């Protein structure tokens, strides 16, 4: 399943930006959207509008800023940051970054670094590392309820769960199947024989 990632590249060289963008877009297993930031003065505004998951930034991009400040100011507290390096840099300068990318990294190295960062995010969010994409029987029950047009409240009552748990399940279902809409889930449910057409309302 390909993972959606929004990446902002803050780098003043057009050659480096385009090169990195081309490599990133070619990586298998990711669906990457890129926004380019060409100068320090458009950094905060660019991030505030685009809200990327990951920022890849040349630490020597002119301008004096603090990474934590930047995250607060642009309203993306969970944004991960890669330092984009041309050559050896002061480790002190690099400490606030989650990881580094060198302009000499191979596409494989780039992919591994993205996967590593992404895996951390998923496991910290879900509290478990599940790489299986099939639905659990509980999740299948919830799909059936959603397809029948029940609200989260009604599903919670029917299955003796809290609405919060129902919402978490629904988020996991959407992530596993890459299907978000109720009509998409209906197709999934019919194709996988979780439900029959005559059980549907309307």
């Amino acid at each position: 399943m390909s993972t959606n990632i929004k990446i902002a590249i803050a780098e003043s060289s057009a050659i480096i930006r385009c090169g990195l963008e081309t490599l990133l877009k070619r990586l298998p297993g990711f669906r990457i959207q890129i926004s380019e930031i060409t100068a320090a003065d458009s950094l905060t505004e660019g991030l505030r509008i685009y809200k990327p998951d990951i920022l890849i930034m040349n630490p020597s991009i002119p301008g004096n800023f603090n990474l934590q400040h930047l995250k607060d100011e642009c309203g993306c507290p969970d944004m991960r940051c890669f330092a984009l390096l041309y050559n050896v840099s002061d480790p002190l300068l690099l400490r606030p970054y989650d990881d580094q990318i060198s302009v000499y990294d191979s596409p494989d190295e780039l992919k591994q670094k993205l996967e590593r960062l992404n895996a951390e995010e998923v496991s910290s969010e879900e509290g478990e590392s599940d790489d299986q994409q099939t639905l659990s029987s509980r999740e299948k029950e919830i799909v059936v309820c959603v397809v029948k047009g029940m609200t989260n409240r009604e599903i919670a009552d029917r299955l003796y769960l809290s609405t919060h748990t129902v919402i978490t399940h629904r988020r996991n279902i959407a992530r596993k199947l890459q299907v978000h809409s109720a009509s998409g889930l209906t197709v999934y449910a019919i194709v996988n024989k979780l439900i029959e057409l005559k059980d549907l309302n309307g």
Partner: protein
Amino acid sequence: MYKNGKYRETDKMSDLICENYPMVLVMSRFGIALGFGEKNIGEVCRQNGVDPCTFLTVVNFLTEEVSEPVTNIDKCLSIEALIAYLHKAHAYFLDFRLPHIRRKLTDAIAGCPKDVAFVITKFFDDYATEVNKHMLYEEKTVFPYVRGLLKGVRDPKYNITIFRKHHDQIEMKIIELKNILIKYYPGPGNNLLNSVLFDIFATEQDLSSHNHVEDFLFVPAILALEKTIQ
């Protein structure tokens, strides 16, 4: 994948189309037909009554895969021509592309269980309705507002920022349909279904670049226009 240097009026139209075949759609949305021989872009445009500057702005915007709002919009860009282009693109999606995919899809899934065919068709119809609503809003609300601006009249109750904030990615749901067909389609494989899948891939790309033109070229142009009529 495609060449992406800036195209100029003096480049041959046939080179543009051969190097970037999706531009055949752009050309036809500007009302230019095939069969233009050896003529260059400027000549073909003028012969068809198309503003070459607007045509080239859209072409260069798409071939350069611009992914941020355009800040230095060429003064010669004609907003009327751009609206006419967007309007033709809407007509293409609603009157040709989606009905065409629907016909092919229905034929392609005729062999699978009836209930599956039913929900897949229903999913598609729901999607088409959504696209319709999305584009109708632009036709009924956004374009008339902009045509007013062009006449120097500013509707105090509306501005282009309202549109920018509510403009959703209409291609996301067709990605869902593609995922469902690829991962869960229960019938035997067939050439027609593969062909529908190719159409869906192409339409997803086409819708996404259409939205890009609206978000990153049309909206900034209107923002600039609004500033002149404060």
